[in-house]
């Protein structure tokens, strides 16, 4: 059974977003998503300074089998990317909600966060899969 931490919100395309409380948020993919993808072998992160809009494809994770786009859950400017993923994409398999985070961005519009799914709603969504 996939973990769904309650300290963050989720998109219906299986990204999670954690409000860092300093005007930025951290983004990754859910445990459910990494489990579905299988062994990850390559991650293409966005670049620092990229201006993203909500639901924009901005990163790619590749499993042994296929490539999958990652979408930004909200709008904002990328301020940090997880450099460790370059050599260790499997960090996402091991700890999708922690060490396997993908990028951080500024929160351009806080109301976009309210439109995302809480843990309970996301848990129901993946239970249907």
């Amino acid at each position, binding site marked *: 059974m996939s973990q769904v931490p309650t300290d963050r919100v989720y998109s219906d395309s299986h990204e999670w977003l954690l409000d860092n409380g300093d005007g930025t948020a951290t983004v990754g993919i859910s445990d459910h998503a990494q489990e579905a993808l*299988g062994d990850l072998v390559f991650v293409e992160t966005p670049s620092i300074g990229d201006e993203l809009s909500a639901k924009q494809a901005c990163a790619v994770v590749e499993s042994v089998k296929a490539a999958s786009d990652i979408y930004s859950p909200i709008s904002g400017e990328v301020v940090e990317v997880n450099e460790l993923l370059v050599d260790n994409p499997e960090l996402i398999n091991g700890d999708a909600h922690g060490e396997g985070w993908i990028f951080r961005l500024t929160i351009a519009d806080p109301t976009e966060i309210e439109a995302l799914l809480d843990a309970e709603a996301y848990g129901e969504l993946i239970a249907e899969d």
Partner: protein
Amino acid sequence: MAHRTPLFAAHQAAGARMVPFGGWDMPLHYGSQIEEHHAVRRAAGVFDVSHMRALDISGTHASDFLRYLLANDIARIKDPGGALYSCMLNPSGGVIDDLILYRRSADSYRLVLNAATTDSDLDWINAQAEPFAPVISRRDDLAMLAVQGPEARAKALPLLSADLRSALEQLKPFHACERDECFVARTGYTGEDGLEIILPNEQVIDLWQRLLNAGIRPCGLGARDTLRLEAGMHLSGQDMGPEVSPLTSGLGWTIAWEPSERDFIGRAALEKQRHAPLAERFVGLLLLERGVLRHGQPIVVNDQGAGVITSGGFSPTLERSIGLARITAEVTDACQVEIRGKRLAARLVKPPFVRHGEIKIPR
């Protein structure tokens, strides 16, 4: 609803992630595709390939029929027990499918078809068969397991009947033997030694469980794909297809041109191509930068389109991305592959990439 093999419940019990494949629900992996891949390279793994379909062909003119149906020549197999890899072509020389054919006796053969194309292959075969009147029997009553890896035979043989075991100890690669209803071939699609076992549906659950109990790891379609790619083996529908000649799909070696009086479907079209300089050839590629090669990515040389990736993926053994590609004939060494708008450097290599556990290309 998708078809299920007799092992469906056993897969679930082993923790399989099931996915749709060619009209069947099949295991993709049982936890880690990469670990399953390594198990086959280093020890032994077992794949349920019961979605592939055995077809028995017999009759007085069965040999003549197969010599007409297939581009390779079954007359090359002199003795019962021999196996042959061949393409089945259409009249324009395109590849309908690839298959392995076993000779069981003078007038009796077994061939194994790919799952996704079983029905259309069978329609095609039946349509060509009429003048030869062979008996064609689709064996939906048989299941198939592939046990592969350097320890596969040592681990699997003790589980088979004593009679079969003594025959299998002597069995050469690419040969088969059978006792009662159990047909065992020393073939496979992973680049490792191993066995393919065809047996009645009602016997397969028991054998599967005994193979697992003997320490053989269950492996899914995911590992099968990375293993066959490392072994440089072709995937029907990706590396070859009905629109493409075997001569530009790296399968020229499977065409038996001699004897010249043997007519086979597609021969006339291939004869025309045979003596003309080929515009394209089939190669292996090693990606020199980070990324993953995938089917359909374009190849670029000197800013010009120069070919396409036909099969690509991550090689767990090399820990790099590798691919098979169709490329313009004059390219010999370096090229670029366009992946999501970026051009990444790649080098041409000669497949196989990995065979019998060893890396075969310069790194």
